[in-house]
């Protein structure tokens, strides 16, 4: 079971308290009716599905109930960081240097 740090509660808790909510930083189209079919496809369906550090959303379902973002290495499943929703993407270079994720 993963241990996940909620940036609001500031506690590291078992995965069972959280629900995964997909890739992070996918911005809703400001003017949906102006979107082409290609753009809709990209927004709705295309995902980076990276092998390595992945920006993703989690929700502290059985705790504070709030959404936050995380960077997790999808090969080791190790979390590099978690941060409140709305904050910009943390820089990958600084994260990977700090925690040396296992490959």
């Amino acid at each position: 079971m993963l241990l996940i740090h909620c940036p609001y509660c500031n506690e590291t808790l078992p995965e069972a308290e959280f629900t995964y909510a997909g890739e992070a930083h996918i911005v809703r189209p400001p003017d949906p009716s102006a979107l082409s079919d290609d753009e809709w496809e990209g927004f709705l369906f295309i995902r980076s599905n990276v092998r390595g550090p992945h920006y993703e959303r989690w929700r502290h379902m059985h705790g504070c109930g709030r959404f936050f973002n995380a960077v997790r290495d999808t090969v080791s499943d190790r979390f590099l960081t978690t941060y409140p929703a709305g904050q910009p993407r943390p820089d990958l270079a600084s994260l990977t240097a700090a925690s040396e994720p296992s490959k």
Partner: protein
Amino acid sequence: MTRFSAFSLVRNALTGHKHWTEQWPESQPRAEYDVVIVGAGGHGLGAAYYLAREHGITNVAVIDKGWLGGGNTGRNTTIIRSNYLYDESARLFDHAVDLWENLSQELNYNVMYSRRGVLMLAHNVHDVQSFKRHIHSNRLNGVDNRWLTTQECKDYCPPLNISPDARYPVMGGALQERAGTARHDAVAWGYARAAAARGVDIIQNCPVTAIRRNPDGSVAGVETAKGFIKAKKVAVSAAGNTSVVMDSAGVRLPLESYPLQALVSEPVKSCFPCVVMSNAVHAYISQSDKGELVIGSGTDQYTSYSQRGGLPLIEHTIAAITEVFPIFNRMRMLRKWGGIVDVTPDRSAILGKTPVKGLYVNCGWGTGGFKATPGAAHVLAWTVAKDEPHPINAPFTLDRFRTGRLIDEAAAAAVAH
């Protein structure tokens, strides 16, 4: 390569089994091929076999980063059925079941296809309504599937707990009698042996690191751990790793890769006659010919390439199994493992051409592509050979996520399948 027959078995038994020849040679890559297939799972190996057998294309290499059949083909719970809701899916999976029926004879290799029947349990009103809808739709498509009452379920599968106060009451079930299981490894080995016998090179322990394209955009070949290999056509059949491979060709896909787990018990005497699936409680079970109970679990909630999976899912699955089949609650489990499954938004496969000329993709089989192996391989070979889809895979385009013409088995089943 020795042809298997009663005669060759007896002769080799009498000579101490010292004269069996290898089933396929250890190939090293040549500089150039007509077709390179990335991924030596059942789908990739099968496609190589059908390319050689049906289309006379034998200058083919199947390249795998590990050992052949070591991906999801060798990790799955081997449930084979074709009772999917939509016309497109029913045609595709029923095509596969047609091929399964004669596969051992065709390959001269016992894939142990066993038509032992797959029973899907209904535990609530939603299940009853949805299964009956599937049954009607299947019948219109000529796919066998019929409704069993609670008592008929018990008669078909005696270990089942149908007591009215059970935690998961059985309100009936949908039975496909033509469905069943096959020996997963044998499917990979049988296709590998038959393809190699027709001249296909099978190259193991050789990761494909990138797909290279020509200046005009068309496919040029693949970069591998053993150097560049030129190819006129490249077909990617890499299951959970498809996004990574296709990214290198500049093709982004609507896929997410999740761990899916399974486990087996210690072997016991034959006690479980069929396959039972319980979608509502996420438990799938059958008994292998060795006697182990083979139990399938669900996918983790998060994407991952770790090939492990979390323990909470195993706990949930075992809790459900022991409720539905109380006779198993003292059974000891031997081992569990995970595979990485590539899931599409509509839970249907993507099988066909890509925007890159000469590049083909077969992916998105997610939690349920073993059953499709012969069918998918057969139409993939057709698509590569003719540079156009077979009518059966024509609807399974990558383009459908742009046009909106989805094949929404996800909404139809609302669970893993």
